[in-house]
C-alpha cells in the first residue's frame, strides 16, 4: 500500500501581528490508499481546518503535503482546481448543492467539467443516484428533497468522478439520526466494497465505528488515545 496523503509538520495560522491565531500546530498524517479515516475532536480543535489543508481547499502556512504523489503546495489556482476535479471528492456539512440544478444535473457537474459528453454524464449521474438510493428523484430540485436525500445527492456527486479520496466534513451534522446513519452506511459500504479512501470529520463516536482509524485532534495537535 502506498500513501495517498503524506502531511508533514503542517501549520496553519490566521491573521497578522498580535492577532495571530495558531490553529494547526505541526500535524503529521499519513493516509494509505483504501483507508477509512475519521478525524475527531472537540469543537474548535481544528478538524475542519485540517481537512481543508488535506483536501487542497486551503494552503498551510508551513509544512509539506503530498496528495496522490503530487506536491499540491506548488500548484497554482487553476492547477489546484483541476487537481480537485480529477482526484478529490467532497461532501460538505450542509449538502452544498446548486439550488437551480436538478439532482441529476448537480451530479453531472464534475463529469461535464472533465469533458464527458452530455449523454455519458447523464447515464453516470443516474447510475450514481441509483447507488445512493435516489431512483426516480433525478429531476428533483434540491429544495424538493429532504436533508438526507440532498446529502445523498452530494455523495453521488462526490463519487461520480471516481475520486481517489473522498473528504466529508461532518456529513451527518444537519441530519436526523436515521438519515445520518444512512449516509454513514453508504460511506462504509463504499469503503468495504470498492476500497474507497475516505477522510471524514465527525464528533459522534458511533459514526466513527466503521472506520479503520481515528485521528484525535486537540487544540491543533494530534493526540493519542
Amino acid at each position: 500500500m502506498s500513501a495517498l496523503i503524506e502531511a508533514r509538520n503542517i501549520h496553519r495560522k490566521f491573521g497578522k501581528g498580535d492577532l495571530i491565531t495558531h490553529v494547526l500546530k505541526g500535524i503529521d498524517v499519513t493516509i494509505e490508499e483504501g483507508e477509512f479515516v475519521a478525524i475527531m475532536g472537540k469543537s474548535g480543535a481544528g478538524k475542519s481546518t485540517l481537512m481543508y489543508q488535506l483536501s487542497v481547499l486551503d494552503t498551510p502556512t508551513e509544512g509539506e503535503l503530498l496528495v496522490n504523489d503530487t506536491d499540491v503546495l506548488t500548484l497554482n489556482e487553476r492547477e489546484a482546481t483541476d487537481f480537485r476535479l480529477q482526484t478529490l471528492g467532497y461532501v460538505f456539512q450542509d449538502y452544498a448543492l446548486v439550488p437551480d440544478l436538478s439532482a441529476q444535473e448537480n451530479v453531472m457537474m464534475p463529469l461535464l467539467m472533465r469533458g464527458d459528453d452530455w449523454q455519458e454524464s447523464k447515464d453516470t449521474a443516474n447510475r450514481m443516484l441509483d447507488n445512493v438510493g435516489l431512483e426516480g428523484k433525478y429531476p428533483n430540485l434540491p429544495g424538493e428533497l429532504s436533508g438526507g436525500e440532498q446529502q445523498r445527492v452530494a455523495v453521488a456527486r462526490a463519487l461520480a468522478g471516481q475520486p481517489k479520496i473522498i473528504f466529508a466534513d461532518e456529513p451527518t451534522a444537519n441530519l436526523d439520526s436515521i438519515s445520518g446513519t444512512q449516509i454513514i452506511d453508504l460511506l462504509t459500504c463504499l469503503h468495504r466494497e470498492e476500497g474507497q479512501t475516505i477522510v471524514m470529520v465527525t464528533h459522534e463516536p458511533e459514526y466513527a465505528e466503521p472506520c479503520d482509524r481515528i485521528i484525535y485532534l486537540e487544540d491543533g495537535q494530534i493526540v493519542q488515545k
Partner: protein
Amino acid sequence: MRSLRIGLLLGIRQIQRASYWTTGLIIFVMTLTFLNLIAVSGILVGLIQGAENAVRESAQGDVIISARDDEDFILETPSLMRTIATYPEVTAYSVRYTGAATMEANYTERRDLSGERDTASVSVTGIDPIAEDHMTQLSELVVDGEYLDPKEEGYILIGVYFLEEYAENFGDFLDTVSNVGPGDQVRLDIGDISKEFIVKGIVESKVDEVNFTTFIPEREFRRLFSRLDRNADQIVIRTETPEQNADVVAAMEANGLTTFAKIVTFEDNLPKFLIDIKNTFNVLGTFIGSIGLVVASITIFIIIFINAVSRRRHIGILKGIGIHREAIEIAYVAQAAFYAVTGAALGTLLTYGWFVPYFDENPIQFPFSDGILAADPEGTFWRFVTLFIVTIIAGFVPAWMIVRQNTLNSILGRK
C-alpha cells in the same frame, strides 16, 4: 469548450428558476433602453428625413436636371425629354420654366392712384399641369380654390407665402399681397409685358419651394417670358425606387445627356448642411440614448452582482469541486446576454412592427416637416450590438468580482 456547456447550463437554469416578475421587469428595462437608443436619434433624424421626403415628394423628385453651369437653360429640351421618357425606371417627370415677376393685386378697386400699390415680387413657374400633378401631386396641395385646368387659359396658382393672411404667422418680412383668394384678379409684370390672371387656387406645402412660387401653364409662361425655344430651367424626374437614382443618372451621363444639362440625384442635390444636421442629430440622439445605456448597464450590474453575491457560497462550492472560474462567469454573462437579446429583440419588434409604421401613418407635425421615426436597419443593428456588448460587460464584471474571491472563504461565508 467544457466551461461553455456548464456555464450555459447554469445560466439557463438560473433564468428558468428566477421569478417571472423579476425577469419581466429586467427585460422591460432593456426594451425601454433599446427603444430610447433608437427613438431619440430616430425622431431627431426623422425630422430632417421627413423634410427631405417632403422635398422629394412635392418639389424635386428623384433626379433633377438643370441648366449646365455655362448655360442659362437646359439645351435641346424637347429631344432630351423624348430620350428621358424612354428610360424604363422613369415613372413621371415634369418640365419647369422659372422666372421672376412682380405680382400686383387689388389694382381695379384702387381709388387713390398716387397711393401705394399692392404688389409682391414673385417667382413664376411654368408647368404642364397634368405632368406636374402626376409628378408631385401638386393638386393635392391646393388648400383653397382649385387646381389648374389644362384646357383653360389665364389662371394662376399662388403659393401661400405671397398672401398676407397666410404669411402673417411668419412675421412681416415676407413680400405679400392682401385679400387675394380664388376668383380674384392679379397682374404679373415682367419688364414691359404684363398679363392678368384669375386666381384659380392657393397652394400650401411643408416645402417652402412650393409656398414661395406661383404656377401658370407653360404655354402662357413661354409667351409671357418670351421663351420661344422651349428650353426649360428644370426637369424633375420620379424613378421607380430611390435606390435606382444613381444608376439612372449614370446611364444618362453615359448616353451623353450631360452635354445638354446638369443631371444629379436627389441625394447629391441635398444641401450639405442638411446632411450635416442629420449626422449631428444622429450623434446627439445616440449620445442622449447612451445615458439610458449607462442606466441599463448599471441595472444589469446590480442585478448580476446581487445574484452572484447571494450565490457566493454555491460559487465557492462549484469551484471547490473543480468547476473552472470561466464556467461560472459564463453562467452570469449568459444571463446578462439573455436579458439584452430578449429586450433588444422586443425593442426591434416594437420599432419596426409598430413605431415606424405608426409614425409613417401619423407623422409628428413639425412646421417644416412631417417627422417620421428614422430607424435604418444598419443603425438599429449597431445599437443592438452596442447594447449587447455593454450588457455582457455589465454582467461579466460583477460575476468576475465574486468568482475570483477565495474559494474556501466563499464556501464558509467569511469576509
